[in-house]
């Protein structure tokens, strides 16, 4: 009797203690499981972020790439991620990265979505110097450029031309820096192999501005700028056609949008007090000095000269003793240069305060060493006010920057399921 009772007591308590022990063991196991789940969840998130970064890297290397790619990883980050680059209806790319991790009790997935900002529109005035084609013209010792320089072709250099701001080129330097006598000084460095900056396919944008709020003429015209009184922004422009005055435009006229254009050759000279762009679907002819009334750094005067084929410094008496140009120059399919630059006697210096952007680099003179033989010596200064993206001549041509700036980085919220 006593033996049976003792046996029951022992078995009973064994069961009881076993149950308690099992509970303790379960708690310990669950804590361990939670730790594993948390780790897997972190890995899942990290893999999704990693996939997004890989996709971004691929997109920035080749902006035309679209597709899907899966990558598996072993070791500590055991799992896989699938990234894709697709187009949104707007044409802008979207990056999506999804991770896949096998946790102890579930399959975990995290998503990262990256959206990009719209391409930004920049003015060509941001460059002190820019060309599509440099041709066989060389930068030489003594040339100094303040402001950014870019060419969609190769920049030829010999000796030590000095560039005060960053230089970029699509096709590189000839010869490469440090070889073949190229000891150019790049104060802010240089970068080769950058993306081409496309010129506009036509000048329709500024032409539209001339017809809507500006002044649009046909045939050859002459524009004479007058600074008015010493008062700010009271300048005016007189427009002649065939020697006859056909228009007078006040720069402070609220109904005038600041653009004058013509289908023919436009001859220009004088002093500007205000903000103005003059364009021609053929060429511009600079017949005398073109100056801002206020030539200090605090001036608000700004002039854009825009032409389809050429902008030329006229070969005439007023221009034979130095030439002053306060303006930003843009030639879409041709060049800026001096008329008959390779003939006659030296004409002094061209003092340009502004920026020069042209399709093909033109010439203003010929040289024997560093001595001018014919035409002009160059004294070009970048108008530092133009480095402000918001400060530009009215309706001045620009380009789209397709740098794909990240506008939105979105991560899915993931909640691990604990035991």
């Amino acid at each position, binding site marked *: 009797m006593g033996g049976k009772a003792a046996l029951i007591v022992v078995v009973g308590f064994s069961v009881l203690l076993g149950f*308690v022990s099992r509970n303790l063991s379960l708690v310990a196991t669950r804590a361990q499981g939670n730790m594993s789940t948390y780790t897997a969840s972190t890995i899942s998130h990290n893999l999704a972020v990693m996939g997004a970064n890989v996709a971004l890297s691929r997109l920035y290397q080749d902006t035309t790439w679209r597709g899907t790619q899966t990558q598996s990883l072993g070791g500590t980050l055991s799992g896989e991620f699938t990234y894709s680059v697709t187009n949104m209806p707007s044409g802008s790319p979207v990056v999506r990265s999804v991770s896949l991790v096998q946790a102890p009790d579930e399959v975990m997935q995290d998503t990262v979505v990256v959206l990009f900002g719209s391409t930004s529109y920049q003015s060509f005035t941001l460059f002190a110097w820019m060309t599509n084609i440099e041709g066989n013209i060389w930068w030489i010792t003594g040339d100094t450029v303040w402001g950014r320089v870019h060419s969609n072709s190769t920049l030829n250099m010999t000796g030590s031309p000095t560039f005060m701001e960053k230089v970029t080129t699509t096709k590189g330097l000839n010869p490469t820096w440090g070889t073949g006598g190229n000891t150019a000084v790049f104060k802010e460095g240089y970068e080769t192999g950058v993306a081409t900056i496309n010129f506009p396919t036509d000048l329709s944008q500024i032409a539209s501005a001339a017809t809507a709020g500006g002044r649009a003429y046909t045939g050859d015209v002459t524009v004479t700028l007058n600074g008015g009184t010493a008062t700010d922004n009271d300048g005016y422009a007189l427009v002649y056609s065939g020697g006859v005055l056909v228009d007078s435009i006040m720069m402070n006229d609220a109904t005038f949008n600041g653009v004058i254009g013509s289908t023919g050759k436009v001859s220009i000279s004088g002093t500007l007090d205000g903000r103005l762009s003059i364009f021609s679907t053929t060429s511009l002819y600079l017949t005398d000095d073109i100056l801002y009334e206020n030539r200090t750094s605090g001036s608000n005067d700004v002039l854009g000269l825009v032409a389809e084929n050429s902008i030329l410094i006229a070969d005439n008496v007023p221009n034979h003793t130095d030439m002053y140009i306060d303006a930003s120059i843009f030639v879409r399919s041709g060049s800026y240069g001096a008329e008959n630059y390779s003939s006659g006697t030296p004409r002094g210096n061209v003092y340009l305060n502004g920026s020069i952007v042209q399709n093909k680099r033109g010439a203003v003179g010929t040289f024997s060493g560093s001595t001018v033989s014919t035409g002009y010596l160059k004294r070009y200064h970048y108008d530092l006010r133009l480095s402000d993206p918001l400060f530009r001549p009215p309706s001045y041509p620009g380009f789209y920057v397709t740098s794909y700036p990240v506008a939105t980085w*979105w991560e899915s919220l993931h909640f691990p399921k604990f035991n």
Partner: protein
Amino acid sequence: MQYVIDYLGAAILGAALLLIINAANDAASENNSLYNGDMLVQEMLVNSAYLLEGELRNMGAGVGENKPTILLADTSEIRFVYDIGLDGIVDTVYYAMGLTSELPGTQNELDRPLYRRVNLEQPLSVGAVTVFNLKYLTKLGEVLATPVDAARLTEIHTVEITMEVQNPYAILRSPGMVRAGERNALYSSSLWQQTRLASQNMKR
């Protein structure tokens, strides 16, 4: 006589066995409570941290480049905007710590609800915390005074979060074990800190 000695011996052994079992039961129960409490705290903290960390990482997602992202930044509350569902609609999210009196049902006198509110919906408690502290730093590492001045909200680059969760249920101590200034109960706790949380959308 022999039977009397047998009965007495059995009674003494039985009583000793009962005492041992009782002590073992107490120890097992206490350990069980401790482990369960630790796990409860762990899960509460991780859930709250996941939600908070995930949302703060998304701050500014889907918001225009020159538009404000953080609307209110204080020591224990923050209001910011982002597109929760990536559906083109920007949502306003608000996190704040409630009062200790709002959790009267728990034994822990320090725990408070952590509220999350989306747009104009009713605030929802997403956890119980004892510490919820936010610190705001600029790109240069300057710690901004709280509440952050409205003019400086756009300067916030990183957020430092400190969060502590304690077990709502106590392990009581005998009065002799409580020293001056100490609480009369033990609460398991867990501290989480994210020292440099910067949303990708704040870096642009």
